[in-house]
């Protein structure tokens, strides 16, 4: 009988512990199992499984459809408004004013769309890890032969798919409507979409990272708080640029480094406008001080890093 190292009170002759004289590891490997063994799924299969279930969850819970429906309503409103504006402006304004006004209007719609996308990224993902940890849903999943980082990556991919569709619908739709109705084709339409998409991914990664350690509400608050910091930082940077206050510009850049979401929007706004436009004062749509390409590269790394950080933190924590 194996000896118990602790004060286990064993009544005389009562429990017969399984006896064996071979070392434990040797025994287990030698034994031919009568069980049908399967190997755990590979990293790719696990990731795709989780991506699919995450995407399907959004669809089945109607989050996806309601968001899409809201998006369609948004586009319908924009399309109708643009129709009347074009009818009015064609009669009363010069060609240059007309084009400028129309571009401004589309940009306002794009800006609203980017905010909706950002909110969508945060609200859909803030509950995914923390909620499943709190409810214990994750216990039956994480005890399966899967790598934990794949679970996080899969969820990320699922949300990314949903956000991609959303950006294409809302922002792609806005650009398309504007193009079809007014004939204005932005010089870098795809770049605009990519930048707004990257903005959503940055927020998605930050929310999921927070969600590995905090509750759902706190995770949402962390992400939206940082989004707010970036937003204010963007304004500070533009004022600093107009008034030539270096400290303000640096503060703005610092806020973009902490959270590059607003910098990405400003880059997108710049890419949407024809080269000469974009200096119409300080608005979220103006390109008074346009974030550089380096900032875009930084933001892409940032998005990648927060995604990896979420995987790392989730793999390490006790569930």
């Amino acid at each position, binding site marked *: 009988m*194996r000896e*118990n*190292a*602790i*004060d*286990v*009170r*064993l*009544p*005389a002759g*009562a*429990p*017969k*512990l*399984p*006896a*064996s004289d071979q070392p*434990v*590891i*040797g*025994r*287990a*490997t030698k*034994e031919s*199992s*009568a*069980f*049908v*063994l*399967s*190997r*755990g*799924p590979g990293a790719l*299969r*696990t990731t795709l*499984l989780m991506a699919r*279930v995450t995407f399907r*969850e959004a669809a*089945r*819970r109607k989050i996806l459809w309601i968001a899409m429906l809201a998006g369609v309503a948004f586009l319908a409103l924009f399309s109708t408004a643009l129709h009347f504006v074009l009818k009015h402006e064609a009669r009363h304004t010069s060609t240059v004013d007309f084009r400028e006004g129309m571009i401004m209007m589309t940009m306002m719609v794009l800006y609203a769309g980017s905010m909706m996308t950002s909110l969508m990224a945060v609200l859909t993902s803030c509950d995914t890890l923390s909620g499943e940890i709190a*409810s*214990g*849903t994750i*216990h*039956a*999943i*994480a*005890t*399966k*032969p*899967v*790598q934990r980082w794949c679970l996080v990556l899969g969820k990320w991919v699922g949300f990314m798919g949903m956000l991609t569709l959303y950006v294409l619908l809302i922002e792609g739709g806005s650009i398309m409507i504007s193009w079809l109705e007014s004939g204005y084709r932005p010089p870098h339409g795809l770049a605009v979409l990519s930048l707004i998409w990257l903005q959503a991914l940055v927020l998605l990664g930050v929310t999921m990272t927070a969600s590995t350690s905090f509750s759902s509400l706190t995770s949402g608050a962390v992400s939206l708080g940082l989004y707010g910091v970036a937003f204010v930082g963007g304004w500070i940077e533009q004022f600093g640029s107009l008034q030539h206050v270096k400290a303000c510009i640096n503060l703005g850049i610092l806020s973009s480094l902490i959270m590059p979401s607003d910098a990405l929007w400003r880059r997108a706004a710049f890419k949407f406008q024809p080269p000469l436009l974009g200096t119409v004062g300080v608005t979220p749509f103006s390109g008074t001080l346009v974030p550089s390409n380096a900032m875009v590269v930084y933001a892409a790394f940032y998005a990648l890093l927060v995604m990896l950080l979420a995987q790392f933190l989730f793999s390490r924590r*006790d*569930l």
Partner: protein
Amino acid sequence: MTTLTIDTSQLRKTYGTRTAVRDLTLQVGRGEAFGFLGPNGAGKSTSIKMLLGLVKPTGGTALLLGQPVGTREVRTRIGFLPEHFRFYDWLSASELIAFHGRLCGLAEDKLRRKIPELLERVGLGTQNNKPIRSFSKGMMQRVGLAQAIVNDPEILFLDEPTSGLDPAGRKLVREVIAEQCSRGTTVFLNSHLLGEVEQSCDRVAFIRDGRIIAMYEMGAWQSAQTEVEIRVGHVSSAAIEQLKGFTQDVRLVGQVLQLRLVKVEDLPDIVRRLVEAGADVFSVVPQRVSLEDLFLQMMGPDPGL
């Protein structure tokens, strides 16, 4: 050959200054149904989570099937039904089992065969396409049980599997436990429903304050400590004094002598002494000690947790 499927030594978990599990040392063999009992807050959940690889131990060693806990190889060969099993409730029962089967790495054709069998086994054959959100707590528990055995595990961990189940559901769980054990699976059962444990398990461990305080083979405590009631007439105090040689725990209530014996083999001698001392012995009835009696005796006064 009997082999160990669970083998832990001085497994410990502390959260900051709080110690959840002080010392978990236990060995469980293949095909054994092992009950893990203790009051709330004794460290049961943390212990199970450490064995499952969900929680990293602070110290000690733990092997499942001869390998360190938490590795993917080990997780391929275990099944787990968590307490309050919850899952994506928008899935149907068969989709849920399929998802868990895929997470176990099962092939699609095997899953197609297996899912109806499993649902049939847990009594949900006709409910396979309904979304889980429309299920009762008991039905959820049944789906949970099905997902836990989808990979034909070698160790099956069941955390409160019968809570929320009606008598038919409890019977089903007992049957599944028996089936799994008969095919060589080790069943590690954590439950507050001691009657269920008593019917299902081969051996039980009692855990209190993060440490195992006793282990018994099922029913062994009865021979370890037997209460006997002897109905007597004309018993003298001298005769009762004589019995003190066998046990200190002797009481005379009316015409019934109540004794608590450590060695049940002493019983014939005791009867002989009584008769020799002039007492009339009408009946000797050993009293059955239930697992619940033993549990309450082990755990002492209720701390109200």
